[in-house]
C-alpha cells in the first residue's frame, strides 16, 4: 500500500476517541474517513429531524422544511465563515471550542451521562455522515 493509502486507512479507522490527535488549532483538517463527503447526502442529513436534528435548533436555506429552530445561528453562510476543517470540529465536538455549548457532540461517545440503552456507545452521526454534512455546509456561501 502506498503511504497516502496507509494514512487514509488509518484515518478511516479513527474511532471517536482518537479524534483528539487530529485537532489542529480550532479545526480537524483531515477527513474522518479519508474520503471527501457528498454534499447532496449532507443536505438530506441536515434536513432530517430524526438524523441530523440540525433544524431543531438552527435555521438554514432548506425551504421545504417549514419548521426550523431559533436556538442557534442560521447555517446560511457557514461555508464562508468557516473552513471545512473548522466545520468538522464544530460538528464532531463543539465543546472543545466552547465548553458551555448546547450543540450536541455528533462524533463523540465519551463523557456522556445516562445515555439511552439503544444509543449507548454510538455516535449521533457516523464518520461518513459527518463528512457529508461538512461537504454540504462548505457549499453554503452567501
Amino acid at each position, binding site marked *: 500500500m502506498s503511504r497516502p493509502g496507509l494514512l487514509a486507512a488509518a484515518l478511516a479507522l479513527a474511532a471517536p476517541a482518537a479524534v483528539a490527535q487530529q485537532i489542529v488549532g480550532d479545526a480537524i483538517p483531515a477527513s474522518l474517513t479519508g474520503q471527501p463527503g457528498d454534499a447532496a447526502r449532507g443536505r438530506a442529513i441536515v434536513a432530517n429531524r430524526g438524523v441530523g436534528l440540525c433544524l431543531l435548533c438552527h435555521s438554514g436555506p432548506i425551504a421545504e422544511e417549514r419548521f*426550523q*429552530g431559533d436556538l442557534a445561528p442560521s447555517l446560511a453562510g457557514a461555508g464562508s465563515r468557516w473552513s471545512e476543517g473548522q466545520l468538522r470540529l464544530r460538528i464532531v465536538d463543539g*465543546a472543545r471550542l466552547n465548553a458551555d455549548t448546547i450543540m450536541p457532540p455528533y462524533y463523540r461517545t465519551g463523557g456522556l451521562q445516562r445515555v*439511552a440503552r439503544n444509543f449507548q456507545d*454510538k455516535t*449521533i452521526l457516523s464518520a461518513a455522515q459527518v463528512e457529508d454534512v461538512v461537504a454540504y455546509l462548505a457549499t453554503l456561501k452567501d
Partner: protein
Amino acid sequence: MTALRLGIGLAIIFAASYALAQGAADKRRSGTQDMSDALQKMQEDDAANPGMLFVQLGGQLWGKATGAAGKSCADCHGDGTSMKGVAVRYPAIPKDADAPVDLEGRINLCRTANQQADSFPPESRELLALAAYVAHQSRGLPIAPPDDPRLVAFRARGQDLWKARQGQLNLSCAICHDDNAGRKLAGVAIPEAHPTGYPIYRLEWQTLGSLKRRLRNCLAGIRAETYADGAPEYVMLDLFLMDRARGMMLESPGVRP
C-alpha cells in the same frame, strides 16, 4: 357609575391575565399561554375539555367501595370538595414515612393501606382519573408547596437533576426550559415547564397523561435513559418544579397539543 365600570373593567383584566394574578412583576408563563386560542378555549370550557371525562370517571371511582376493606374514598374523606387545596401542596411526605410521594403515589397508598386493594398500575385509566378528580378540586388555587424542612434535600436533588446534562444529545432540562424557553425548537415554542396542568389531556396521546409521562418524553427526546416506573427521581423533579411554580395557578386538567 364610572367607578363601577372601572371595577368591572379591572375584574375582566385580572381574570384574563395570569401575570397580574401572580403580581405584575412575575413574568412566569404557564404552558397554557403558549397554546393557540382554540386550545386555550378547549381547556377552559368544561364541555369541550376531554380531560373532564376523566374527572367524571374519577368522581365515580371516588364513591365506589372496593378492596378487602370494602371502603370508598368518600367513606373516609366525604365528598370531593374535601380535596380542595390538596393537589397544590403535593408531592409531600405521608404520615409515618420519610420520603415524599406525588399525588398518584398518595392515591395508591390509600388503595393499599386503607382500602386494602392492589395499587393501580402507572398511567392506568383509574389512577389518572382519580388524580384528575382530586387535582380538579384545586383548579384556580395557587401552587403552595409545604414548608416541611425534610423536603429541602429532595427538592435540591431535583434541582441537580434539572441542571445535569444527559443523554446522547448532552442537554439538560435547564438548557431548554430556563435558558431557551420561548424560543423555537423546530416548530415548537419551548415552554417554561411549569407543572400547572397535570394530569393533562394531550391530543397527540389521545388520552390523559401524568407529569411522569411528560418527563419521560423529554428524556427520550434527548436520548437519555428514562427513570424506572416508581423511581424517586420523578418525585424529586416534581418537587423542584412545583416549588419553581409556587404561586402560579393550578389548571388541571390541562390540554396540550
